[in-house]
């Protein structure tokens, strides 16, 4: 298929992001195995996609500071602080202050590589964990289990697969190392992902 030509930029990006249709993966990877220029382009695209995700996540975390500079005017600080106190107090009174679920922190998890746990997430926020399910046995749903570093289960659920990805939200979590295990519904362990919830600095 790609015998005498190079891969298209869009295809490389789709593959890098895990969004390539299953049927297109085999010819793509067969070409990658023998073509150095396309290997280099894929490595560059991986770096670019990773950097963009990292930067976009940072921008999302500081939207007020960036997008609405007038909020930084000193004269508004007391008013905003007062308003925040009122809102939080009202929420606590109602017993359901947990708006973090609507704006979770997105974390892309990749299958564990060696002993390293590279994915990071901040403590005290809802997390949107996104898993790469490429190359796993096909299933419309997978059972997920999140355990702490001692293997104690802290959360579990069954989630639908969306292409070669699955995403799910987990509530605010304490700092520490966690592992997410993916099981085939009959119970077979398929893959494990690691991530670290970092304490506030």
């Amino acid at each position, binding site marked *: 298929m790609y015998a005498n030509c190079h891969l298209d930029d869009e295809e490389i990006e789709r593959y890098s992001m895990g969004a390539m249709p299953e049927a297109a993966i085999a010819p793509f990877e067969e070409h990658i195995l023998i073509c150095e220029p396309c290997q280099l382009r894929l490595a560059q695209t991986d770096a670019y996609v990773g950097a963009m995700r990292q*930067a976009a996540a940072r921008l999302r975390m500081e939207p007020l500071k960036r997008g609405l500079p007038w909020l930084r005017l000193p004269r508004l600080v007391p008013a905003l602080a007062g308003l925040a106190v009122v809102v939080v107090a009202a929420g606590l009174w109602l017993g359901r202050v947990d708006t973090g679920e609507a704006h979770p922190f997105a974390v892309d998890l990749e299958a564990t590589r060696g002993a390293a746990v590279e994915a990071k997430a901040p403590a005290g926020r809802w997390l949107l964990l996104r898993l790469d399910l490429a190359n796993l046995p096909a299933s419309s749903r997978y059972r997920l289990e999140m355990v702490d570093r001692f293997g104690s289960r802290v959360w579990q659920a069954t989630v639908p697969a969306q292409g070669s990805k699955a995403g799910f939200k987990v509530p605010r979590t304490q700092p520490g190392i966690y592992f997410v295990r993916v099981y085939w519904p009959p119970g077979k362990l398929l893959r494990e992902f690691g991530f670290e919830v970092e304490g506030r600095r």
Partner: protein
Amino acid sequence: MNSTTHAAMESVTNFADSPWSGMVEQIRNGDPSALERMYRVFSTGIRFYLCRQLGPQDLDDRVHDVFLIIVQSIQKGELREPERLMGYVRTIVRRQVAAQIDDNVKARRNRADLEFGMTLSDHHPNPERSAIEHQNGELAMRILNSLPKRDREVLARFYLDEQPPDRICHEMGLTETQFRLVKSRAKARFGELGRTRFARHVGFRS
């Protein structure tokens, strides 16, 4: 394009034009020059694939193991369609990756069971890789900051939220061409700013 790349492309084109059967047949017959040729064609690709999936640890050993498996199975006659050599190599590499991940999972589980109060090792990536990732992140941040708000949102939706292009175009009132332009301009800018670093740091090379 450097001379190594030229040489690699030449070999790719030659093998793509001619069937793999000849080389497979020679390997079956124990011809060392065929082994050498196969190593030349596939070694960088296998190294790249393994490094991308499993990281740089023990890379040389893993590449060697994969070659051993491929050669032995060809010699045992397990490759029934020699013209499908590329697909066969890919299957073996993928199996090795899956087996390694499985081993890591089991090892970690056993360790956690045995060592209740285990000490944590340093899980951070090596300093060089960490520095490169940090620099790339800063570069991307510079690019996003230099863009209009709408373009920033397009890129965040695509790369961070992984929304499909048609949904982004629909919700943000963009044509497909406008969407592609936003993406390609940002990527080109990133390439310009980081070109020298990319050229120097490609982790899978030996």
